[in-house]
């Protein structure tokens, strides 16, 4: 099976390339990049003149909700959402029901992914059994079954002792520990960022220090135990300082930021009329924090962008803000938002955005992809920088529509998603 992408502009920071190239994909691999490639017989040709070809985009933070919460999302709908959003691969979190703390659950998720095949799926295994934060999950058996990292995401690992052992033990398998960093007692019943807007709205706040505390602890534990530590959805300026210091020290510490923390602040809770689609964890922070994050993605101290795609059913979100579940969907809005609000605004250039959404995610999680070098896996995203879009949550591929970006418009969107050399078509129903 061969596919030739003709006439496009290849942007691939992994080989420092930004130039017009034809790209030939053969048998699931990138075969050749050249200024002009003749199509041999039997090669399907895709005209992408005027479009941008990038290594397949990878979202290393998504909740596909399967098994157990298929009313919110499933591997099928989640990967369709990924493909629609320009992602060729998603890393899915372990807080399913049952929890992905054992090889059978991992195998089930992978089997579902193979069956549907709209995007690659890389499961994350739990750090602790049942995400209870008490005993280590069977990290070795999980690794053997195919998990790419360990995380209790949804719940921070509260016990410093367990976190230390987890960092240490995970080294045997070479996989990173991925943390939702939050000091729970300090967060209390908080439902939004603690600051001006929580004071004005009378909504309990989550201080940025709740994140900073655990980031500081985890950096110290990484120094103590070694291993690789990846901080999820960094949202506070101070936490970014802590990550910078850890990197300067040479620790294997990486972090991600989400499009919503890069684009929105706590004022959005007020502006939206206290919409539960502005409630996520960590919460939308202050403008000062947001500016720090923008600096972080530009200067490289934030390694990558991930969505924290967290689907919830409309009935779950249609409740008072204080008691609504945290989280928003992100797979189908991330790329458009980044192109329009980050690249077009000059926060980062296109090459850096591809680095943030493809090369670095692949590197952090040790995944195939993140490059269009010959021999690399044939996962490709094609972007149309001129495509105008308006978010219409009612038309999402995702089962859920909990987004604060409904109605937003912009320019620049994913056009094609190619997984293993195969052009993904969402119209072909199962």
């Amino acid at each position: 099976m061969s596919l030739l992408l003709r006439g496009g502009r290849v942007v691939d920071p992994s080989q420092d390339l930004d130039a017009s190239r034809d790209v030939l994909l053969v048998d699931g691999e990138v075969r050749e990049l050249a200024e002009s490639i003749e199509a041999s017989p039997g090669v399907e040709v895709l005209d992408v003149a005027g479009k941008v070809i990038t290594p397949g985009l990878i979202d290393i933070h998504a909740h596909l909700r399967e098994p157990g919460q298929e009313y919110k999302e499933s591997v099928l709908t989640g990967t369709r959402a990924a493909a629609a959003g320009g992602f060729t691969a998603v890393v899915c979190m372990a807080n399913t029901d049952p929890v992905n703390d054992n090889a059978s659950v991992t195998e089930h998720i992978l089997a579902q992914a193979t069956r549907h095949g709209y995007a690659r799926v890389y499961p994350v295994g739990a750090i602790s059994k049942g995400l209870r934060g008490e005993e280590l999950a069977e990290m070795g058996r999980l690794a053997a079954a195919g998990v790419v990292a360990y995380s209790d995401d949804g719940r921070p690992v509260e016990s410093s002792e367990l976190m230390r052992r987890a960092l240490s033990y995970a080294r045997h398998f070479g996989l990173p520990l991925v943390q939702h960093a939050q000091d729970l007692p300090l967060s209390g019943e908080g439902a939004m960022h603690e600051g001006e807007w929580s004071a004005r709205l009378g909504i309990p706040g989550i201080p940025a220090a709740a994140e900073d505390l655990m980031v500081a602890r985890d950096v110290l534990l990484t120094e103590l135990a070694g291993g690789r530590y990846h901080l999820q959805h960094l949202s506070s300026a101070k936490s970014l300082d802590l990550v910078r210091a850890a990197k300067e020290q040479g620790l294997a510490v990486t972090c991600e930021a989400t499009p919503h923390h890069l684009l929105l602040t706590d004022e959005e809770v007020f502006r939206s009329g206290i919409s539960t689609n502005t409630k996520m964890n960590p919460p939308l922070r202050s403008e000062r924090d947001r500016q720090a994050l923008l600096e972080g993605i530009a200067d490289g101290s934030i390694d990558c962008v991930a969505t924290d795609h967290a689907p919830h059913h409309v009935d779950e979100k249609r409740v008072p803000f204080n008691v609504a579940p945290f989280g928003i969907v992100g797979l189908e809005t991330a790329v458009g938002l980044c192109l329009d609000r980050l690249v077009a605004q000059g926060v980062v250039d296109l090459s850096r955005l591809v680095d943030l959404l493809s090369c670095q995610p692949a590197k952090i999680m040790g995944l195939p992809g993140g490059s269009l070098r010959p021999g690399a896996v044939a996962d490709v995203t094609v972007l149309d920088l001129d495509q105008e879009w308006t978010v219409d949550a009612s038309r999402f591929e995702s089962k859920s529509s909990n987004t604060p970006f409904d109605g937003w418009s912009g320019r620049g969107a994913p056009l094609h998603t190619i997984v293993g050399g195969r052009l993904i078509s969402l119209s072909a129903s199962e």
Partner: protein
Amino acid sequence: MNQSGWTRKHLLGVADLVPEEVELILDTAHSFLEVAHRPIKKVPTLRGRTLLGLFFEPSTRTSSSFEIAAKRLSADWVNFSTSSSSLRKGESLYDTARNLQAMAPDMVVVRHAFPGVPEMLAAEMDCGVINAGDGAREHPTQALLDAFTIRQAKGRIEGLEVAIIGDIEHSRVARSNVSLLTKMGARVTLAGPRTLLPAAAESLGAAVAYSVEEAVAGKDVVMMLRVQLERQHRALFPSLREYFDFFALTRERLAGAKDDVIILHPGPMNRGVEIASDVADGPFSVILDQVTNGVAVRMAVLYLLSIATTEAA
């Protein structure tokens, strides 16, 4: 009484009211005050209207005040008791709203533990919605009756110095009062234990003081807030007696206030905790006037909103 440009169907908060609307409510309330002195305390203004009281949080004072206001206007008042209702059976707020809507009330008066619930109801229902307290966010009729009481005692609001003292963090009364009184030209100082002040208290639009003495110095109006006794268990202050020792309003602490200071309290009071009995019952207290005025202010609000709903119909 007025064709005076009242257009709102809902009273969700005071934050977006303009001063002219506040004046209109207070003037209208003034004209309703005398109903309480009639032998038959009833006017036919809202005859045939159905008003629903929807108190998701226990409330005696506010719900009674609304009920009396409604009845004095000849409206039919129905209490939708949330303790014995379908809510206990797990019905969602969304479904409650839709079911109540199906009974076609003219207005709903709602109290709920969480901010934003009145907006949720207003979005789902055709009738007018009055916020009778949404969590720690707003309690508009309380702020209006406080403003009415201040104006009644002082003849004005503009230029007055007001202190609000106590549990600011958890107080919808404080938030609505800061918003309303500053809008009407008063200057407000907030005070209380630091553990009961919001992290960004100054962003509410008031000055912040950290002792009762400092807060009351030179004030025309001192408003004390109720201490919710369960806060003690969340380590927000050590004990009630210590609260009284350091943060209560006593005669001695009141010495620095203006000679004609007035004392307000939204009730119910904890005597000997946030306020000393001799201050609560003393010559400066207008606490019972607040209760009397509350009925008139709520009559005014029900009346004005009913104009808007009628005209919209």
